[in-house]
């Protein structure tokens, strides 16, 4: 792989995984490159798999139990842009893609596939949501992921009204399933002010660089109580807490810092840092003095190094 290709790959992958889950999936199989810029963000939200792949065989299947048909093709991913946490690394292994039609597809071609999970066992089968010829889409994908509407830009925007950014790696021996269980643990301790249990021993990116002591308002919205904090393996158990000045509204999960108090406004303020390299990059671009140094222990997903 050439140096420029490697750079592109790293940039793309580094920007891939802050994607938040969005509305229902689109079913268009073929989207023109001209429309790509507009649709890419939606595709990223509605697809669970995004990868560049070489078409191996048309009307074939690599998944036992899935017969080959006019709708199935066998491909080998060469670059994974979006990786479901439960699946992990999958580039380099043959996949089966269900497509509505095989128009313009031929063996040995390289295509970008945006897809949803279909059958995942010893092998992977996905349903294609959209596909683009790789040679034409590489630059557009890079532009979108790194451009003003890409995940990096969205994160930067999100950080603009954030007072504290707390990142943490969840330790294996702590209770960390969801907000509700963490609160339960605090209640059982009978403590009124404890450290965030899911950031033990981790880096706190606060103006003073110190740890944030906290107390929790038990009257947390039900949806927030059920917010999973651990959907990802240990390697990816980095969370990003975006703390805002609290209004002390009933139902908010409140953390009391020195002054003023802070809060997590919603589940959106607790982000899993799958694309930690991207987060580090954005934080590094913020004005000096606003936040501490970018963390150094992040591991990027999908098979590449941080940029």
């Amino acid at each position, binding site marked *: 792989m050439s140096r420029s290709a490697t750079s592109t790959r790293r940039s793309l992958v580094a920007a891939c995984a802050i994607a938040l889950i969005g509305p229902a999936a689109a079913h268009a199989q073929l989207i023109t490159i001209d429309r790509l810029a507009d649709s890419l963000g939606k595709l990223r939200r509605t697809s669970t798999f995004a990868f560049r792949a070489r078409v191996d065989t048309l009307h074939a299947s690599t998944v036992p139990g899935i017969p080959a048909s006019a709708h199935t093709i066998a491909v080998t991913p060469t670059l994974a842009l979006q990786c479901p946490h439960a699946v992990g690394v999958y580039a380099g292994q043959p996949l089966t893609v269900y497509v509505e039609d095989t128009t313009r597809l031929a063996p040995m071609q390289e295509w970008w596939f945006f897809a949803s999970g279909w059958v995942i066992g010893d092998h992977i089968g996905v349903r294609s949501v959209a596909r683009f010829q790789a040679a034409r889409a590489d630059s557009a994908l890079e532009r979108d992921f790194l451009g003003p509407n890409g995940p990096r830009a969205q994160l930067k925007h999100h950080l603009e009204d954030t007072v504290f950014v707390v990142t943490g790696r969840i330790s294996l021996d702590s209770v960390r399933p969801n907000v509700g269980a963490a609160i339960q643990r605090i209640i059982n301790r009978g403590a009124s002010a404890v450290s965030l249990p899911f950031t033990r021993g981790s880096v706190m990116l606060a103006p003073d660089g110190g740890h944030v002591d906290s107390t929790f308002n038990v009257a947390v919205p039900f949806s927030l109580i059920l917010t999973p904090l651990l959907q990802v393996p240990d*390697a990816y158990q980095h969370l990003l807490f975006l703390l805002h000045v609290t209004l002390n509204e009933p139902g908010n999960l409140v953390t009391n810092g020195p002054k003023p108090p802070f809060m997590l406004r919603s589940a959106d303020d607790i982000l899993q840092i799958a694309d930690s390299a991207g987060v580090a990059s954005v934080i590094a671009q913020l004005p000096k003095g606003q936040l501490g140094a970018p963390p150094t222990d992040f591991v990027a997903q999908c098979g590449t190094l941080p940029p």
Partner: protein
Amino acid sequence: MRAAIAALLATVPPVLHAQVRVVNMIPAMFGDETTWNPEPTLAVHPTDRSLLAASSFLLGTDVCEGRNLSPMLVSRDTGNAWSVVCNIPTPGLAGLPPQDVVMRWGSRGRRLYAAFIWSLPDQPQSLQVFSTNDVFSPRPMQFLVGHDTVDQPDLLVIDRHGHDRVMVAGSYKDSMPRTAAILWADDPTGPMQFKRIDLEHRKIGEQDFAVRLDAHASGRVYALYDAVPLEYKHNNTTFLDIVVARDDFGGASKNPFAALREKPRPSSPANCPIGDGLPGVRVVRCRPYAYDGWGAVRDTFGFQRRVPVQLSVTTDPTDKRGNTVYVAWADSSGSDHQRVTVAKSIDGGQGWRLLLSIPNAMNPSVAVDSLGRLGFLFQQLAYDSVANRWVTRLLVTRDDMQHAREYVLASTPALLDLVRAQPYIGDWAELHARGSEFLGVFSAANIPDSANFPNGVTYQRRVSFADRMLLVRRPVDDSLRVDQLAPSIDPFFFRVGPAESPRCSTLRSSVPVGTTPPSLIALPREISDSTRRRMSQIGCDR
């Protein structure tokens, strides 16, 4: 050549030849998941022995179609390998998967049915029923019926003139008091609407929990449910009646599920009398129950919440008239947190005899195989010097628990750091009989430790038994590094054959003649003799 064959045989896992097979159901390519998977269900195909479907609180948010689909598990090789298939419609999926999922195949195996509870925007506890004629289809399952405010559904599908009669039992909370009820329809993919049968004929406090169903080839359908007696409606402690109802015409009698009535008799005892002549025989009355709806992180019962879902009913296929029926339930006594009891009737549910009670246990499930052997599955909390352990045990008996083969399918630690939410390992496990073998599912901690699985275990996900670790591949420096993955609760499938383990004869020969076998309620760790202890784990005749 001989050496090559010997080497080849040496690589074949011994589990393939065992009478007991335990399989961690998380697929290989789904092996980086760390969610917790309680509440397992298993659908056994009636004609294709290789085909199984299952579910266990599987979250598909970032794998399936965003917020629209959740996965199920499917095996095409009788449970050796499992695949996740994204086909359960769950619009608005966020942090929780479909709940209380139960899955059953149609009577001739043409369709798979699934019922579960799903939160809709205006209805947080809605029953949803779907079906498909192809579990591997890239299309979602087909919607059949929905019903607001239902809890703990159970599914029964029987053959009715070549069509599927589908019954969906549960606690229907849209009536006052809440009541056990069934929705049913013939060939529900057609135009027929679902009809409702209310099972309760008495004035009760409420029926807030569960109903379980089973059918006999004669057309008899049994329903087992619990109810809070009116006398104890406002008591601080939960009390339960355990009730059996019966329908002799496939659930479609003119007066459905009223074939079984309590024989009128003088009221005794005065506070909880039995014998009112109404439909539904109460097997036991006013049993105390240590209700603990949400559990507590430091709960003494192995981090597991205690809710009265714990019911199971099965008929004996070798009794041509369908008169022989077994039930199992959970209640509590002063000396245990929760206990499970199995009882038998040989007169169609009129009279009952208690067979066995297991202390500190839950998730009872009963099934009878084609040889008339009763299988009794449960999960028991055992204490040792290291940690609490959840021990999943199967008893198989020919003589009403006078003697039984015992199998320890898993003995896994109850660990605080695996408490993701409640339930911890789930409110039920499932046992099914097919021919002369038993198949089932349970949930347990997924730490790959051979000592936790006395009958062996197969993992599809990456593990190191030597290090007792789940493994994950991490990309580092353009290569893959293998690291530890956080443990969690996983579903396990098991299959137990009809023969005794070949190791039993050797073990038995070293037991002194005249030695009394240990009690069936004794945990293996309580058996001091190591030979007897091993025999109590691998299903030796006794």
